[in-house]
């Protein structure tokens, strides 16, 4: 476990927790109950294989105080199948979310407005069907939300937003951490 340097206060803010784990049945459950037990809500959670084969990366976003997140991360690290856990304030990560919007085809036919919105918001049209189109937008929460508001008048049939994926700005790579971890064994 290591923490973000020189960053400590008692204000609630968004933190990104990364956990690198073995791919084991039930591990997601073990991680999630650490939050549930402390009555802390997870804003977003994603999991995928990392750059190291067989090692999974959980990206968990919570809104909490520094002290809370520090304790949570220690509890996550403590899980037997967790290789490493760390946390960062928002500004030390680069992050992205993706949203999909399904709107009726009629809205596209009736004018150029949708096309303009898509173009201006750097979104793209993924699928065109005689009945509907699906628009994809990646960006920060505010951006995908803004697009939602813009498309709302045309009738949104379905909307889905992914959890946040994030990468840290600092340069130390996972392999180095894992090597250090292996060396930490007595």
């Amino acid at each position, binding site marked *: 476990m290591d923490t973000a340097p020189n960053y400590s206060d008692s204000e609630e803010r968004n933190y990104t927790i990364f956990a690198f784990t073995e791919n084991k049945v*039930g591990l997601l459950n073990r991680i999630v109950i650490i939050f549930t037990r402390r009555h802390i809500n997870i804003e977003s959670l994603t999991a995928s294989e990392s750059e*190291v084969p067989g090692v999974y990366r959980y990206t968990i976003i919570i809104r909490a105080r520094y002290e809370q997140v520090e304790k949570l991360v220690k509890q996550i690290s403590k899980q*037997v199948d967790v290789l490493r856990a760390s946390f960062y304030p928002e500004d030390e990560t680069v992050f992205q979310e993706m949203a999909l919007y399904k709107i009726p085809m009629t809205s596209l036919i009736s004018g150029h407005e949708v096309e303009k919105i898509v173009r201006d918001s750097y979104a793209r049209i993924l699928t065109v069907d005689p009945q509907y189109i699906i628009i994809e937008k990646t960006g920060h929460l505010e951006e995908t939300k803004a697009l939602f508001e813009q498309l709302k008048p045309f009738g949104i049939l379905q909307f889905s937003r992914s959890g946040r994926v994030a990468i840290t700005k600092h340069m130390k790579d996972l392999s180095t951490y894992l*090597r250090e*971890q292996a060396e930490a064994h007595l």
Partner: protein
Amino acid sequence: MSVAVEIKEKEPKTEPKKMLVTGAQGVLLSLLEEGVDTIFGYPGGAIMPIYDALYDFSEQLKHYLVRHEQGGAHAAQGYARITGKPGVCFATSGPGATNLITGIADAQIDSTPMVCITGQVFSHLLGTDAFQETDVLGVTMPVTKWSYQVTRAEEIPEAIAKAFYIATSGRPGPVLIDITKDAQNATFEFNYKKWKKITSYIPVPKLKLAEVEAAAELINQAKKPFVIWGQGVLLSHAEEDFKAFIEKAGLPAAWTILGLSGLETEHPLNVGMLGMHGNYGPNLKTNECDVLIAIGMRFDDRVTGDLKRYAKQAKIIHIEIDPAEINKNVRVDVAVNADAKEALQALLPLVEQREHKEWVQSFFDAYKIEFDKVIREQLYPSTPGLQMGEAVRIISELTEGKAVLVTDVGQHQMVGMRYYNFKETRSNITSGGLGTMGFCLPAAMGAKVGAPDRQVIAVIGDGGFQMTIQELGCIFQYQIGVKIVILNNNFLGMVRQWQQLFHQKRYSFTEMVNPDFVGIAKAYGIAGSKVTEREYLQGQIKEMLEHDGPYLLEVVVEKEENVFPMVPAGDSVANIRLD
């Protein structure tokens, strides 16, 4: 990317043993490989193949048929606490497994190594709400150190090897292996390797010399240093190192209830018990010391009281193996994240010889006040009603402080631990963190099985006794020579005390109309007697201790006695009350 390859577990070089067996036999062979000779358990549908195999292993694996799975779990805990080896218990799926949970939760919070093996429905039935199917992994996840579900026989040796490694290494804890019935039935080539390393798991952090040096510097500069120790000292077998350390640096030391017996009660630097019903001095001095040295303990709220008013004047050193405990409840100035034994050995040459005579004496001055106001009347009462304290004092005297004291939860627990004069380590077994009523009787049973040559005394309240009373059956069947002392006040005494002090004496559902305990013991074929008057107390206790085999002694004590001193819940340790 070759890192994943590099970090794979290293294969041991020894030639593995190979033979064709069923999964059920594989379970038992694995246990034998781990040096297990004792199992507490209860059979049922989903674990029947294992029990069938056990029939052929009964010479090497002594199985105790408990009367309820909770009893099995607590017995395994008692066994683990006394022997230092992991306790092993078996249960079937569904209700069998859920009955273990209280014991597992208790073991988790009190860091007791335990390996629970549960049967599970056939793997093709998982998730179908089959007969006696419970998501045991799911329900035990919050209270196990690790758990694993086996669905193929081939996985059994590795799962069990990992289970034992994880349960016993670093900060110990309970693990659970859930094995489907088809995995128990299938045959496979048995091949066992002990597990010694898991990449993602660092049980014992490397000692950092800088941390030890920083701790030594604070200790050497201290005018009023104070040591508080917990079970970590016992778990790391650091009793001797601990004693050498406090003796050299002249440090008064107080214990948590799980640290108790790690240092003999009468050691001149043992200043007593911490926390809610702890001694007067240790609580007061927590808020007077200049350096507080916490060793292998976790600043439980029953120890600290109000954290905002806890040792604020002191620099705090925390020697602790589990990084998640450091700065969890109390922010510390120096953290030594290491095994207690290793840390104490490193610390010993760095601390200077000191005596701190006046400071140490101040604890004994406080003790004198407490003795006059509280203790004398409990140990040597002037009123006719029997006191819990005097019973414990006599037990302590007659066993010369060498017995294993197992307590349940409540007033008798506090009294037992306060007044038993411990001479040997690993002699106190109690449910600390979870406060599990019903713990004592089965835990004492497990402790006696683990240490048949020691006198094991279960001091227990009338409430807690009736929570796991069914284990009298197990004690009788195997003639487990536990001495059971019921300190009977016909009340749930501790709850009643709180009702008296904090709920205007509204005794809501705490008075108990109790059965004839001695008669119950007799029905189980267990000898027993009842004492209501002082003149017979000593003689009855003596008779119990000399009795060959299990014995139940009911001591009818004063109905409305309170345990003092007391730090009211949420108050500062400095506000400890003597009455």
